[in-house]
C-alpha cells in the first residue's frame, strides 16, 4: 500500500508480502536483524519530525517561503536576476538531465557529456582561452581554485596573492580558506573610483607575487580600462593573471585572452539561474599550458568502437577519486545541471542576443544613473568611467534609511557606504525602473 496513508517512506515500493519473501531469501526474520550496530550507539529516541502528505509538505514550504516579501530587486554585486526563457526550465527539468549521476559510464551518458562539452566550448569562445572545465561551485570557490593552481604552477617561489580592495567579502573570505593550507598570503591592492589604481598596483607588485586578480566589470559595475596594463604587470613578474567576469560581460567586453589573462573565473549562472540566494556556477577557464593542473571535471571528444564521435570525462587522473591527496582539487559533485541551464540560456540568446543583452546592460545602467543624478540629493554614478548593469550612487541623506524606505515601497537596493547605494538594472523591466525612479525621488530628498 502506498500513498499518503502508508507508514514509512512513500518512495519505497515494498509490499508486506515482498518484504517477507526478501527477508526469507536473506535468512532474517526482521529488517532490524540486518543491522549490525552495537547497542551502545543505537539510537532509540525520536527526531520529532512529523511525516506529512505531499500536499501538506508543499503547503508548509509555501507558507514558510511566503514570509519572504515580494520585492523588485535592483540588486547585483555578483548575483543577478535576468529573465530566463521558459525553454530553459522545460528542457533542464527533463528527468534524464535532472536525475542522472556523474558520467562515469559515458556509453549511457552521451547526451549530458555533449551538453558539458558544448558548455566548455561556450566558455572557450567567451574567454579566448583553450580550456574550460565543466564547473566549479561558484565564483568565490573558482577564485580559490585559481590560487591553488597558481601555487602549483609557480611552485614555491612566491607567496603573495593580490586582490582588489573592493573584492566582495564572500570571495575574499573563501579565497582565504582555500589558501589556508598553503604558504600563500592574500593581500589587497588599492582601487580608485571603482577600478584598479594602476600606479598603486605597480608599486606593490614584485616577484613574490604568484597571482594577480582583477575583475571586469568590478563589483561596483565599472568597466576596467587598464586590463592590458594589469596583465603586463603580472607577466613582468611571472604572476598568474586571473580575471573575474561572467558570460554576459564577456560577450561584449575585452576578451580575456586578448589582455593576457591566464585564468578566467566568475559566475556563469548569470545566464540560466534566477536569483537563488547566491547559488551559482563557478566558471573556470585557463590556458592549454596548465591542462594537467586544471581543477574540476573536463569532457573531451573521443570515438566509440564504431569510430563515431563520442564524449567522455577525461584527464580524470587529476581528480580526487583517482589521485586522492595529490589531486588538483577536492571537488567531486559540482554544478553540472546549472551548467546545462547556462548552456541552454546562452543557446537561446545566440550571439546576437548575448551581445545585445550586454549592450543593454550598459545603456540601461547609464540611463538609470542619469535619471537618478537628475534627482535632488543624488549623484550617480559616483565612479568614473563606463558601467555595466550597476553603479554606485551618492545620496545626501544617510543611505540605510533610504534603502529601508525604498524597501517599504517594494524595491531592494544595496547599501555600500554611509551615503552610498548601489543599484542594478538586470532583469528589471522598464516599467519597474520608472516606478523605482519615482519612489527614489520621494525618499531621497
Amino acid at each position: 500500500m502506498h500513498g499518503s496513508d502508508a507508514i514509512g517512506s512513500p518512495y519505497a515500493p515494498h509490499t508486506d508480502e515482498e518484504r517477507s519473501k526478501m527477508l526469507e531469501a536473506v535468512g532474517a526474520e526482521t529488517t532490524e536483524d540486518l543491522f549490525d550496530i552495537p547497542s551502545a550507539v543505537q539510537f532509540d529516541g525520536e527526531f520529532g519530525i512529523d511525516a506529512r502528505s505531499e500536499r501538506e509538505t508543499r503547503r508548509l514550504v509555501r507558507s514558510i517561503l511566503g514570509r519572504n516579501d515580494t520585492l523588485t530587486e535592483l540588486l547585483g554585486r555578483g548575483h543577478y536576476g535576468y529573465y530566463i526563457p521558459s525553454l530553459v526550465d522545460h528542457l533542464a527539468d527533463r528527468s534524464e538531465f535532472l536525475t542522472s549521476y556523474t558520467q562515469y559510464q559515458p556509453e549511457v551518458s552521451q547526451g549530458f557529456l555533449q551538453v558539458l562539452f558544448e558548455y566548455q566550448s561556450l566558455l572557450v569562445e567567451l574567454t579566448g582561452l583553450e580550456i574550460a572545465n565543466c564547473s566549479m561551485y561558484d565564483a568565490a570557490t573558482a577564485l580559490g581554485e585559481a590560487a591553488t593552481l597558481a601555487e602549483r604552477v609557480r611552485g614555491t617561489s612566491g607567496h603573495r596573492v593580490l586582490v582588489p580592495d573592493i573584492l566582495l567579502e564572500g570571495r575574499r573570505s573563501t579565497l582565504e580558506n582555500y589558501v589556508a593550507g598553503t604558504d600563500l598570503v592574500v593581500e589587497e591592492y588599492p582601487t580608485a573610483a571603482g577600478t584598479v589604481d594602476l600606479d598603486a598596483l605597480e608599486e606593490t607588485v614584485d616577484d613574490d607575487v604568484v597571482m594577480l586578480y582583477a575583475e571586469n566589470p568590478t563589483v561596483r559595475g565599472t568597466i576596467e580600462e587598464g586590463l592590458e596594463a594589469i596583465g603586463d604587470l603580472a607577466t613582468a613578474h611571472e604572476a598568474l593573471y586571473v580575471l573575474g567576469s561572467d558570460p554576459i560581460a564577456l560577450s561584449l567586453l575585452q576578451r580575456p585572452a586578448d589582455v593576457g589573462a591566464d585564468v578566467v573565473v566568475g559566475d556563469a549562472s548569470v545566464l540560466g539561474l534566477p536569483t537563488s540566494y547566491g547559488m551559482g556556477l563557478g566558471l573556470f577557464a585557463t590556458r592549454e599550458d596548465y591542462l594537467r593542473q586544471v581543477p574540476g571535471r573536463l569532457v573531451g571528444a573521443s570515438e566509440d568502437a564504431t569510430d563515431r564521435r563520442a564524449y567522455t570525462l577525461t584527464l580524470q587522473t587529476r581528480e580526487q577519486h583517482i589521485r586522492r591527496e595529490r589531486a588538483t582539487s577536492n571537488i567531486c559533485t559540482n554544478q553540472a545541471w546549472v551548467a546545462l541551464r547556462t548552456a541552454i540560456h546562452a543557446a537561446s540568446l545566440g550571439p546576437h542576443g548575448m551581445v545585445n543583452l550586454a549592450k543593454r546592460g550598459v545603456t540601461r545602467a547609464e540611463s538609470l544613473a542619469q535619471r537618478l543624478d537628475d534627482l535632488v540629493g543624488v549623484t550617480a554614478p559616483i565612479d568614473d568611467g563606463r558601467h555595466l548593469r550597476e553603479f554606485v550612487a551618492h545620496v545626501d541623506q544617510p543611505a540605510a534609511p533610504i534603502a529601508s524606505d525604498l524597501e517599504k515601497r517594494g524595491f531592494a537596493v544595496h547599501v555600500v557606504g554611509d551615503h552610498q547605494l548601489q543599484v542594478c538594472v538586470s532583469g528589471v523591466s522598464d516599467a519597474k525602473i520608472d516606478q523605482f525612479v519615482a519612489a527614489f525621488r520621494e525618499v531621497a530628498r
Partner: protein
Amino acid sequence: QYEPLLAEKDLTRVEIGDDDDSPLPDDLTRDSLELPELSEPELARHYTRLSQMIYGIDSGPYPLGSCTMKYNPKFTEDVAALPSAAVHPDRSERSTQGTLELMYRLQDYLGRIGGMDAVTLQPPAGAAGEFVGIRVAAAYHEHNGEGHRDEVIIPESAHGTNFATAALGGYDVVSLPSDDEGRVDLEALEAALSENTAALMLTNPNTLGLFERDITEIAEMVHDVGGLLYYDGANLNALLGRARPGDMGFDVMHYNVHKTFATPHGGGGPGAGPVGVVSELAPFLPSPRVRESEGGASEPTYELFDPDHTIGKVHGFQGNWLVLVKTFAYIARLGDAGLADASAKAVLNANYLASQIEYDVPYEPFHHEFVASAGEQDAADVAKRMLDFGVHPPTTKWPEIVPEALMTEPTEVESKATLDRLAAAFNAVADEDDDTLETAPDRTTARRIDQTSAARSPRLSWHALEDE
C-alpha cells in the same frame, strides 16, 4: 542516433565595434563573438534528443555504491521553483524571513538527524563540507594553541575526497589499513595516532557497508590524543533513526543531501554538504548562520549571525540554496517514520540483492551497500556489459581491498521485481567470457568509448575539433 554539436548546425559571428550601435568605445570591447544561432524549435529538439541519450534514475536501477542514487520526488522541484524561493542574498533579513526560517528549520532537522549541536548549510557539496570540517578542526586546534597538529588519519578504503580535502587543508595524510574483517585496525590506529593528529576521518558504515563496531573505542582513542573525529556522511542512508554520528562520538560531520535526502544529482551537481558539529566546535563554523531573533514577536523571527571564531566563508554567498529547499521538503515529507523506513529498506534491498547474485561478496554483515568481487573478470568490463542488459552497473574497482570490486548500493526505492531484474543482469554477465566483456557494450547507442585516446590528445571544445 548521433546528434550534431550546436556548432555543427550553425556558427554566426557578430562583429562588435565603433561602427555599429555599441555603447562602448571599441578599446573596451571584444572584436566579435562567434556562437551558434538557432531557433527555439531547433534548440528544443537538440536538448530533447540529448536527454534521450542519458540514463537517469527514472530509466531504471542505478546501484552505484556510495552514491545513493535514489528516486528524486517530483514535488521537491515544485517547491524549489516557487517564486518566493527566488531571492537575492543581499536582501535585508526583514524581507527574507521565509528563507531564514526555512534555513533555521533545516539546520534544526539536520542537527536532530545527526545528533549534532550546530549546523551550517553553506558548503555547496559534500567535498566542500569535508573542507569546512577540516578548516573547523584546524581553527579549533589553532584556537587551543595546538596549531602544530599537521596530520589527518584516513582509512585506505575511504572516499577520495577525504584525502584530497585533507591535502587542500594543508594536512599530511596518514593512511590507515583495514583489518582482516574490513574495518579499522585498532592497532594500526593506535600506531598512527599522536600528538600531531588533527583528526581521523571516518565513514560509517564504511565503503564495504560494514558498521565500525569499535566506534566507541575509536572515538576514545582519537579524543585521548586530542584529535577530532570526522564523520563522512556519504553512507548515512544506512543509519537513519538507528544510530547517530553524534552519539557515536563524532565531533563533526557532513551530510550529502543528494544521497541521503534524495535531491537530484543533476548529472554531477549541484549538491549541498551541510556540516554539523558538537557545541565545542560551533564557534568556528562558517559565517553567517541563522538563529531565532530575541524579542517577543508573536511569530518567531530569524536573523543571520557570525559565529564567534568563524572560519569565514567557503562559498561566495550561502551555498546551494535551491538544493536546500528540496532537502527540507524531503525531510518534512518523510518525517521520523519515513526516514527510518528508508534506511531499513535500503539495508534490506542490499542484503536481498547480494543474496541473489552469483558473484562473491567477501565482507559482511554489510548494510546499505555491499562490495562483490568480479573474481577473474575485469570489473570495469562487467560494468560495460551490464549496460547491455538495460541497467546501470555498480561502482567498480573500488574499494581496492576487494579484488575487481563491484560496489553495489540499490537504495530503498527499488522493488523486488527490479532487484530481480538487476540480479539477472549480474548473473548473465557472470557467465560470459572475456571476449564478450571486452567489447561490451554493444546494445547501447554509443559503443565502448576510447578513453585513453581522449586523454592522450585532449579535445575539449568544438574549437579543438575544427582543426581536424
